[in-house]
């Protein structure tokens, strides 16, 4: 079945799996996992450069930018000011016009602060970013972010790094019915079926990091996530049968 490419601003992608670059034991393991995942978009974080020591290996030396589009995030920001500052700095690195806006509410849940997220969205839209916005699975918050001009709205399936999967598929369905911009599940993916569930619901993509990076065998988990993303998407496009309470025989009913 033919599928359209996922469009985000001026970018478009075949792969609908976005993969983070955090928590890998080595750069070479990360590289192999990215390759196995088939991703075309990889996320990175913005942090202070090391001073004084020997200039160590840079993450970017291990990411083929011909192959992957870099999606910087504002992870670790707890106010709109901080997030806007981080986004502007990330753009200044000259590698990407995209940013994943993440404004967190507290350290235990890592859930987004909806008010600060909206404020930062309004500012970064004016700044001309291709803006992907991390949010909770609250349909109203998602709608407000779309109205503010987000390129994509990224509800968490469950808390970041929790591996709990998509906890409230009903909210995700409402978000999908309400929004016209691409909805990408960001956070909470633990295993392949979580990705499939998100894609079967009709999400345009899934972003994950820990589910691959902290798996016992990250490279094969990356492949599992790739297949799950493709199979979930295909199932969505193929149109599933409705759920029914009673049986419906597959074999012809006996008539002799």
């Amino acid at each position, binding site marked *: 079945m033919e599928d359209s490419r996922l469009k985000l601003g001026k970018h478009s992608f075949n792969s609908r799996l976005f993969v983070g670059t955090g928590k890998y034991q080595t750069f070479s393991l990360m590289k192999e996992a990215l390759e196995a995942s088939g991703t075309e978009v990889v996320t*990175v974080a913005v942090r*202070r450069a090391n001073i004084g020591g020997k200039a160590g290996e840079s993450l970017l030396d291990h990411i083929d930018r011909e192959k992957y589009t870099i999606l910087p995030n504002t992870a670790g920001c707890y106010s709109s000011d901080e997030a806007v500052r981080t986004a502007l700095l990330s753009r200044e*690195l000259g590698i990407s016009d995209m940013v994943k806006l993440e404004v967190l509410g507290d350290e235990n849940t890592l859930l987004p602060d909806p008010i600060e997220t909206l404020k930062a969205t309004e500012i970064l839209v004016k700044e001309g970013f291709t803006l992907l916005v991390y949010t909770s699975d609250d349909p109203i918050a998602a709608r407000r972010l779309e109205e503010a001009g987000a390129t994509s709205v990224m509800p968490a399936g469950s808390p970041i790094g929790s591996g709990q999967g998509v906890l409230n598929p009903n909210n995700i369905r409402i978000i999908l019915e309400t929004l016209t911009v691409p909805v990408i599940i960001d956070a909470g993916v633990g295993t392949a079926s979580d990705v499939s569930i998100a894609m079967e619901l009709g999400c345009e993509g899934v972003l994950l*990091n820990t589910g691959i990076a902290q798996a016992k065998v990250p490279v094969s988990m990356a492949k599992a996530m790739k297949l799950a993303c493709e199979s979930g998407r295909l199932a969505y496009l193929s149109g599933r049968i409705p759920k029914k309470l009673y049986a419906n025989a597959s074999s012809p009913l006996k008539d002799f």
Partner: protein
Amino acid sequence: MQVTVNDEKRECSDGTSVAELLEDLGIDMRYVAVEKNRQIIPRTQFNEIKLQESDTLEVVTFVGGG
């Protein structure tokens, strides 16, 4: 003179440019963005912008993240 880089005090000589300071600090200039006194300095101006006493610099780069 003294400047502050990522919250650490550093000594440098008068007339030091941003590029020279980054080099002295062993920072890989290909992958950094720099703020001076909370204003972003475009990469193209790293060579020409000179530091002044008590300037505060923030130097960031990309690291692994999700």
